[in-house]
């Protein structure tokens, strides 16, 4: 009886304690949505950002923040938050289509590589579920595997084992794939490798300092990869492969805040 109690208390402890704040959250969200309806995007943004600062990680929230920024013509910030929303939930349809639309408004044309039909299908499949669904799937497969192993020892102890062994083989393969996908998604969730230009223009230099040669000029909304960071400078790589050092304050990293 004692053990049950310990497990139960552990269970309670593991969940973020939001029970008290639930009211506050829904109240703030309601205020923000009302403000947005009234086209008071400033107020809406303040409320939404308050929620974000209170460690709420939610794709819908990031999506709404992005919409507020877009209404204020801050394309860079909008792109950043759409990317954040997609990071939390890669299957967020609204965020994906809004991002696609807003990217056509950036000054720099960003070419996305054309993929073949198969890789497009696989990519869509990969983005069609979030990290926790992958984790759940992995756990279920693991559970099935254990059950099968137990059955192999008990029910099939003195019988023909070819069927359970085949099933085990199948489940192991699926488990490896599922675990790999989960790991990749987990890595992506915690990664901070992408950045978005939030300033009007950013100049890329050949080294960390304005005294170096100018390499390129990019504009607000450009998505680039972070290769290296210095105190005030960041080495970024553009989609076309060109690299350059850009001042850190001109960019913002697509990153989910850890609480």
């Amino acid at each position, binding site marked *: 009886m004692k053990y049950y109690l310990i497990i139960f208390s552990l269970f309670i402890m593991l969940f973020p304690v939001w029970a008290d704040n639930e009211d506050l959250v829904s109240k703030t969200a309601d205020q923000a949505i009302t403000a947005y309806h009234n086209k008071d995007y400033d107020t809406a943004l303040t409320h939404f950002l308050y929620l974000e600062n209170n460690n709420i990680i939610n794709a819908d929230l990031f999506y*709404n923040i992005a919409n507020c920024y877009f209404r204020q013509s801050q394309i860079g910030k909008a792109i950043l938050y759409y990317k954040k929303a997609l990071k*939390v939930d890669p299957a967020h349809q609204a965020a994906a289509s809004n991002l696609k639309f807003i990217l056509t408004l950036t000054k720099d044309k960003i070419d996305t590589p054309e993929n073949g039909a198969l890789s497009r299908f696989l990519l869509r499949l990969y983005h069609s579920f979030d*990290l926790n669904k992958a984790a759940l799937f992995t756990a279920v497969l693991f559970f099935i595997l254990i059950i099968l192993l137990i059955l192999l020892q008990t029910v099939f102890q003195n019988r023909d084992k070819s069927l359970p062994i085949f099933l085990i083989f199948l489940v192991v393969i699926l488990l490896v794939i599922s675990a790999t996908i989960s790991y990749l998604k987990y890595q992506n969730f915690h990664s901070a490798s992408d950045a978005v230009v939030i300033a009007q223009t950013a100049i890329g230099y050949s080294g960390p300092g304005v005294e170096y040669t100018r390499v390129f000029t990019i504009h607000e909304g450009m998505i680039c990869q972070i290769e290296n960071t210095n105190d005030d400078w960041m080495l970024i790589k553009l989609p076309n492969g060109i690299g350059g050092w850009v001042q850190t304050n001109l960019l913002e990293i697509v990153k989910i805040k850890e609480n």
Partner: protein
Amino acid sequence: MKKIIFLAIFILLAVFAMADDLQVTAYVNRTTIGINDILQYTIEISGSDADKIGTPNLPQLDGFKNQGVSTSSSSSYTMTNGSFQSSVTKKYQYSLSPTRTGSISIPSITIKYKKKSYKTGNIKLNVVPGSNEPAPARASTRNNNSPAENSGKLSDNIFIEIQVSNLNPYQNESVEVTYNLFSKYDVTSLSFKEEPSFIGFWKEDVFTPNRMNLQRTNRNGELYNTMKLKTYAIFPSQTGEIKVDPLKMDVDIRTESRNIWSFGSTKTYTIASKPLSFKVKELPPGAPADFSGAVGNFQLNSSVSETQLKVGDSFTYTLEISGRGNFSNLNIATLPEINHLRFLDPETSSDITASKVNGKKTIRYLVVAQEPGNFSIPSLPFSYFDPGRNKYVTLRSDKYALDVKEGDNIYIPGTTSQASIHLEGSDIGFIIENRVMSSFKPWFDSILYWLLLFVIFLSLPITTLLMKRHTQIAGDMDYQRQKRANRVLKKYLKLATEYYKSANPDFYYAAQSGLENYLTDKLKIARGSRKDQIISQATHLGYSKELVEKINLMFNKCNEARFMPGGFLKENIQTDYASLRDIVAEIAKSRIKGK
């Protein structure tokens, strides 16, 4: 004896050879030659060692150019008074062409051999202008009646004539120069020796013969074999007097046989044209601003492929200059920048005839309309100087009006490739009215997830352990019996206790059955074994002697009480119960072997 003779001859030969002197002489074929002729200068070396001397090196000769050397040698052997003499004569024949007229001398040449010097004589020559080559006898006798037949000079019978279209051209005006060969001889082969360099001109080769092709023509009543040697189109690039060097040809002529004993032979002559002198006039002043040096006579045509367009459509704009003149350095004014019309780099093609003077130059632009509206391509000027009319002419291309309408294609400025963007919608989607906003937390970050997985995993070893135990139990009957033994003993002991309390004689039955069953199970012997077997097995398996004795006593007492008449005594039951308990306690404590 024979050996000695051979040796003597050998020595003699050697002595002769040592004693033999070289004779070196030099001579020429003529002492008076024309500037266009070739002098044959021969050095002859004779003597037995003449073979051993290499080709003499001719020093740099003043007034002559060395054209090459040919070598011939002859040997003779004579026997004089029974002794053997050999003599070799080597001839080195140099072909020298004079470079200036007047008196020229060929200095003496020294040849050194075996520390001895041999000198040739000094030769004095007189070089006259033109050709002093004596006319060889003609192989052809068909021209016998011609008046010039009697001319003894080569230059009257074979010469190069020049045709020039204009000796007094304007700068950049095209001039055609043609060289023709006229010959009364049977020419067997021809080769260019020196071509004029045309310094001060832009030169284009118009015609060069690829094989010898002589044709008979009548020139001033005389019959000649003629051939066009070369045609150039030249464009003077500087003004003033410009001299052009003569064209020189090497001609092989077949000569007539002089008598029936000698065949006709072939002789090589060098013939040259007259030099040319041009007086190039400067272009008159007053050239239009766009004049870029075109001289000749030109026409200008222009065209566009379409005037009604949609945004994103392309059309071609063509400029064409045709006529006669200096096409190679012809420039057309470049188009001015027209907003919203993108002119791609033009494609220029020239279609110029073999004369390099007549032709057509085409400039084709591909133009892309970028915005809707009305645009015009302006008229472009093209100026040239017409030497025939002696004035500058300015031509103008046509003006074109273009009507560009809104099209389906969107032109994206600033990119080289025209990409059309498919818009997802005209605006972003609306916000999502989610008021719950539960926070996303990756399960991988929660301990619960891993705990769950661990619990799932743990069920595997637990099951394995359980299964192992199960099979162990199922496979071990003795273990089952031992386990059962305690249960049986408990049951009988309980029964015995009840009988004891009621002082029932069945107490002994219960005690005996209990003990017997317990011990047979415990000691792994068959049920219903006799008392002796149980006792001996108990002893064997290591129960203590006292215990075995007690068990034995207990069994005896039970037997007595149950089967002997009057064996059951109520007063004994108390002690027997106590001793039974004692036995059971002791058995529980005892360990048996092999377990």
